Structure formats: structure tokens, C-alpha cells
């Protein structure tokens, strides 16, 4: 029994320390799709934006979560044509938003009709809510902010301000 308690204590101690370590790591907020002045494209995660450059992790969020340690890539503002930013969990947020919009639409119709056509409202729930979820997920996946830089320092500093 004592051994079991010691093992549990040791394991819990490790897990607590691991949690502490994870808390120090800052998760990148945005996914980025950068187009260079030559027209090439790089997809990754935005790590940092300085006055004249930005630093990108050249991998997916899945790679980041796995702890794949790729060298970060630095792009100077003069080499940036366009930046597309994508927020984290856009799909989930879109799904929630779409679903709630669909649900609220049904609720309002029920309230307005005073529950006269109950079977119709059930059908509506089956159709409208999933449609809202799917539509929201699609919108969430597509929603992104575009910044046209064209190697211009002013446009880049505008982008920097908006990020913060």
C-alpha cells in the first residue's frame, strides 16, 4: 500500500511539473499564409512580428503540438507581398456560432407561432441546426484577415499594430 502511495505521489509530482513546463510555452495565435515578392507561398504559424520582420514556424499546428522543432523562418518586410492570417480554432468557433444561429432561429419561430406546429419544429431542428453547424464550420475555416504589404514598411507597421 505504501509503495502504491509513493508511486502515485511520484507520478502526480511529475505531471504537475510537466504542466508547469507547458505553461511557459506560448502557443502561436495565428496561422499564416505568406506570399513573397516573387510570388511564392509559405504556410505556417506566426511566432513573432518585429518592426521590420516576422518570424514563422514552418509547420502545422499539429506539428507544433507534437513538439516538432523546426528552425523558425525570418522574412523581412521588404520581401513580403501579402499576408493572410487565420485565427486558431476558427472551425470550432464557426460551428458553435452557426449552430447557435440555427437554434435561435428555430426558437424564435416556435415562440412566434406559439407551438402550433410542433412536428414541423422538430423537422426544423433536424435540418436547420446541422445546416447552421456545417455552414458555420465552412465560414470559420474560410475566415481570414488579409494584409497587402507589397514590400512597403508603412503597410507592414500597420499590420504590426493590428496584430497587437
Amino acid at each position: 500500500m505504501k509503495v502504491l502511495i509513493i508511486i502515485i505521489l511520484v507520478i502526480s509530482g511529475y505531471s504537475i511539473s510537466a504542466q508547469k513546463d507547458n505553461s511557459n510555452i506560448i502557443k502561436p495565435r495565428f496561422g499564416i499564409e505568406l506570399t513573397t515578392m516573387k510570388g511564392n507561398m509559405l504556410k505556417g504559424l506566426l511566432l513573432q512580428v518585429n518592426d521590420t520582420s516576422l518570424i514563422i514556424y514552418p509547420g502545422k499546428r499539429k506539428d507544433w503540438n507534437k513538439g516538432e522543432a523546426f528552425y523558425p523562418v525570418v522574412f523581412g518586410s521588404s520581401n513580403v507581398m501579402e499576408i493572410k492570417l487565420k485565427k486558431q480554432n476558427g472551425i470550432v468557433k464557426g460551428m458553435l456560432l452557426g449552430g447557435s444561429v440555427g437554434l435561435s432561429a428555430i426558437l424564435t419561430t416556435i415562440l412566434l407561432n406559439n407551438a402550433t406546429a410542433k412536428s414541423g419544429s422538430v423537422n426544423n431542428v433536424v435540418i436547420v441546426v446541422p445546416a447552421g453547424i456545417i455552414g458555420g464550420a465552412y465560414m470559420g475555416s474560410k475566415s481570414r484577415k488579409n494584409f497587402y504589404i507589397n514590400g512597403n514598411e508603412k503597410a507592414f507597421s500597420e499590420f504590426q499594430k493590428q496584430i497587437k
Partner: protein
Amino acid sequence: MKPCFKQLVHIKAICFLLAILLFKTEAAVAFNLTDSTVKPLKRINFVVSPKQKKFDQAPFSFQLQAKLTRLFHKDELYVIIVRNSEAMAEKIIKILKEKNAVIGHLWFDSHGHWQRRRSLFEIGEDEFNYMSIRDSAFTANLKKLAAYCDTNTNVGIGSCYGGATFTLPAIENFPAQRMNGDSLMIDLSKLLGNATVFACESFVMTGPGILNAGYALSGCPGRKKFKDPIYGPVWEKLGEWNCYSGKHEKFEEPVTVSLHQDGSIRFKEKNYLDFEKNKKKLSKKILALKRGNYNLASLYQKKPV
């Protein structure tokens, strides 16, 4: 009655010849028993494919087709699915010893990795390129197969751009770089008993009917990332295979290669781009190439050592 001098000479000559014959047969028998390097004529064909940790459509399709084909060609074709070159050499040598045979055709099914900017093929985890193929310690397992190869052995590098000779254009921070597929082919040939080596300049497809002696190995991939001008040199050489003859120590005319049901590698009479419809298809694809379709992130995905 005593034999005359002439008869004696004849008898002696016959005895001498008999003795030589006897000695030769005994020597041959002894040689066969003691020395295993005597190569019998039986030839076996092998296709080597990587064992996957995660599901990957391309090797899965190849392995499935190869295994199905093997059901009808059990004597000639063997499918070797391994994690590294050591396991491959062990498996192949075991089969060859059992069957008392040598390698007829050897096909390496592998991915090509564009982002590494060099011609290569992989046997499971082991990557062979123009540099690593010269590392005697690294190629020790591959070298073990040399005893079962000769100038009549055909080796196929089944990875995309495995025999590419073009120079990749410079892109962003990366300078122009030659693929050096020809060096890889020459060194592989030397490693495997001066065998004939086939490798492709362009994409190697894994669609249905790979082992049906058709043009299934050549074709246009559909993924968006390939429709970028950085793949331009690859598109221009669609269905073009280089052939290095170790016997003659030179490169032959480029051909289009096909795999037959017994696993043998042969080339087609007409090249892939000799067909008008393929030419038209290719010109359409080249016109539709658009910068920005390829994600440069894969070029930067290098881990700190």
C-alpha cells in the same frame, strides 16, 4: 601378342584424356560444393517496398497490386516489405539461397522528396542519395546483394525524380542545385555488380495496373502543390527514364519504363510523350502552372541537430 608402339601411344593418349576429364569433373564438383559464388541461371525478381508506420496511399497501392500479382507468379516475383536496408538484404539473400538463384530484376518502390532538392530513393528508413551511396558503411547492407547481381541484373529506382539530371532553379534563400540522379545511378550500378539501372527524371505514379506492362508508371499527378512553376523541369520530362548500363559504362537513350507481371523491368517501344494526347495534356498542364501553389514551408522544415 604385344601391342605395337603406335597402339601404345594411342592407349596412353586416351588414358591421359580420360584422366583430364576425370580431374575436371571432380574439380567442378568440388568447386560447386565449396564455392557458393557460382551463379546458377535461375533469376528471381524482387520489388522492395517500405513498411509504413502510418497509412500512406502510394506504397499501400503498390504493395496491394504487387501482392495480388504475386499470387499468379509465385516462382518469379517476390514482394519484400521492410523497415530498412538491413532487413531487405536479409530477406532477399534468404530467398536467393533457398532457391539457389540470382537477382533478375530489383525494383525499389519509394517516395521522392522534392524538398530535399536531390534525387534519392528510400528503403524504409534508409535514404540513398548521391552522397550516402558512396558511404561504404551505410551501403554495407545493399552491397551484400552484389554477390547475387551481374550485368544482366536490372535495377529500378521507383521514386519520383530518382534519376533526375536537371538543375533546380534558385528559390527564395535556396540556391540553384543539381539533382545528381545520374551520380546516384552510376554508384548504385557499381554497388550492385555493374547492373543496369533505370530511374525516372519525372513523377513515378502508383495508379492501378502498375504491373500490367502499360504506361501506369508515367502520368500527371493531380495534387495542387505540383502545379507550381518550381516543378517545371519535372513536368517537361514526364515519363522519361534514364538508363545506365554498368556493362557498357554509359547512359543509354531515355526510355519509358514499365513493370511486367513477373516483376521484370522493361522499356516501352514508344515513349510516354510520343503519344499526341499525352503531349496535349502536358502542354495544358504546363500552361496552367501557377506560382504560389507549392508551400515553401516543407523546404524550411529542418530540425536543429
